């Protein structure tokens, strides 16, 4: 008989190994399921999980997809640590892009180095404002931030549709629902000549290091962890749960908003109805894959960005539909949560009573 035994201390080895086991299991399950569905399962998994990393010309794409995921996940992870479940990052990402685009449309006839920083600031504030609503409702009225932040995502997306079809529609855009293209002063500079690698990618890495220092080396980071692990002890120690909720929600809103602005001023170069691409939800998986650790999140962001790039490869190599990427990502999160049990529990054989 197999039985689970609770470990006295969480296993450090399993803490690091379980994400890798989860990735391995996801590949195995993906292979079986997609073979059963009549696809070339082996090559599907190879295209999604290996090809993007083995072909250097794809690394730029991984960076472009990974940067917003890492930025959003950093904010979410800090909140998750404190048991603050902001799952509306997608809405904050959209609102950040909208606020930044507002500045871009206002400064359309101007030029100057200051325009892009002003757009970034607007993006940050837009995301923060959108996150402030669930933070306020949670702190003042104990309304679940899970549901409110998520509802606000649908509102933000509709607001985006309204703007691009109505007041912000490009007058010279042949009636397409989209804003003007941003000017050179409103677009993120590329950091590597001849690639799409833009300023957002080094920014995401720097932010990860800052978040790591904040979480590991400061009292504020310690307070956040204590509030999440032992709310009663935190109250006793003078750490305020309300302040932690505000701080983590605003921080994650700011990061999601900035990610939205980077995406609008980078790969998109304008706002279109295709702008909400689900990064806010995928970032939840990135946060867990990174074990809610800022440096782990960089790893998680690279893996998930790889599945997007690989999903496109698999579309052309084994004709796997695009939706398969989402299924792989969900399976990965399932496997991460399943293997997490190994950190706290040990599996062993039960001795039969004689």
């Amino acid at each position: 008989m197999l039985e689970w035994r609770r470990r006295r201390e969480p296993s450090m080895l399993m803490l690091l190994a379980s994400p890798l086991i989860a990735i391995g299991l996801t590949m195995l399950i993906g292979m079986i399921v997609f073979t059963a569905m009549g696809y070339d399962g082996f090559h599907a998994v190879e295209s999604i999980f290996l090809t993007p990393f083995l072909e250097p010309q794809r690394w730029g794409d991984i960076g472009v997809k990974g940067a917003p995921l890492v930025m959003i996940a950093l904010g979410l992870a800090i909140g998750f640590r404190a048991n603050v479940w902001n799952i509306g990052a997608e809405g904050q990402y959209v609102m950040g892009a909208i606020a930044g685009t507002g500045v871009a449309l206002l400064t359309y006839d101007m030029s100057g180095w200051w325009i892009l920083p002003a757009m970034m600031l607007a993006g940050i504030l837009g995301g923060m404002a959108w996150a402030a609503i669930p933070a306020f409702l949670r702190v003042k009225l104990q309304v679940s931030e899970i549901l409110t932040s998520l509802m606000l995502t649908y509102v933000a997306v509709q607001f985006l549709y309204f703007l691009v079809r109505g007041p912000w529609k490009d007058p010279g855009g042949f009636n397409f629902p989209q804003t003007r293209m941003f000017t050179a002063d409103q677009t993120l500079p590329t950091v590597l000549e001849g690639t799409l690698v833009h300023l957002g990618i080094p920014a995401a890495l720097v932010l990860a290091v800052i978040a790591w220092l904040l979480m590991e080396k400061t009292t504020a980071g310690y307070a956040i962890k204590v509030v999440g692990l032992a709310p009663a002890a935190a109250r006793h120690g003078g750490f305020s749960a309300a302040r932690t909720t505000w701080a983590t929600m605003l921080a994650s809103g700011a990061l999601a908003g900035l990610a939205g602005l980077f995406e609008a001023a980078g790969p998109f170069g304008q706002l279109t109805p295709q702008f909400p691409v689900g990064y806010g939800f995928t970032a939840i998986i990135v946060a867990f894959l990174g074990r809610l650790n800022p440096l782990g999140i960089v790893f998680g962001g690279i893996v998930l960005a790889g599945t997007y790039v690989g999903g496109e490869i698999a579309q052309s190599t084994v004709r796997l539909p695009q939706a398969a990427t989402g299924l792989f990502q969900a399976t990965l999160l399932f496997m991460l949560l399943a293997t997490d049990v190994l950190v706290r529990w040990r599996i062993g054989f039960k001795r039969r009573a004689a």
Partner: protein
Amino acid sequence: MTSAMLVSILMTLIAASTPLLLAALGELVAEKSGVLNLGVEGMMLCGAVAGFAVAFSTGSTGIGLVAAAFAGVAASMIFAVLALSLMANQVATGLALTIFGIGASSLIGAGFVGRTITRLQPVFPAALSEHPILRVIFGHDIVVYLSLALVAGVSWFLRRTRPGLILRAVGENDASAHAIGYPVVAIRYAAVAFGGALAGLGGAYFSLALTPMWADRLTAGRGWIALALVVFSAWKPGRLLLGAYLFGAVMTLELQLKAAGVTWLAPEVLAMAPYLATIAVLTMMSLGRRIGRLDAPACLGKPFSAS
């Protein structure tokens, strides 16, 4: 307003409320047992696509409904294994289930985009179901009557039966229930499965009755509204019925204003209405909590292990 208009509005309202009512009622039972399953939207999408695929292939919407319920149960069991047996975080597992449902329904549904089926038909004979006034009562399909019967059934089960009492005890105090000898985890599995079946049915109501045509992400966040409705209901089936029909009214208003060609309000603003209404309702509930008590099960969302 003519009586014909009123009848037509009521018909739309009841149809729009039914999937919400089903999904929320299933979640209510799961939460009463102490399990917070945020995967309602994902289970609804699994039900919607399975119902449509089976109805399209067999030509029978009835078999489609049964398949949808099974698909909902199957999806809910992924959640149950992770959250109940492996004690994974329930919030994260529920989210994973929703991401899974979006991906799976999109993948399976890809072959059905734009295909249509015969929608679910009224149960009663035409003399009643097409009567200009009486059709408010007799003009619905089987799922509408089933959803109302289930509200009564669940209410009776939770309040008047012994298994219902045990289920509530498990949700209020799992440790004590375990100590007395009740199988906490097994009871929670059953409650989650029931929630899955109803979410699956609710999802299928979109693809088999409301819009008998497949489209990606057909449920458009209604699963999340169902979760909010459970809070609104204060975990009471009767109030859930009221809440679901209130939300049906909000969505009907949106459709009516659109149909009436209201131009001063942008369609996007109307589309925001159900989500803004959800936030407003949750906020009002919290304000009300200071006066009355909000009866959330004490063990809601907490993992349980026997050892």
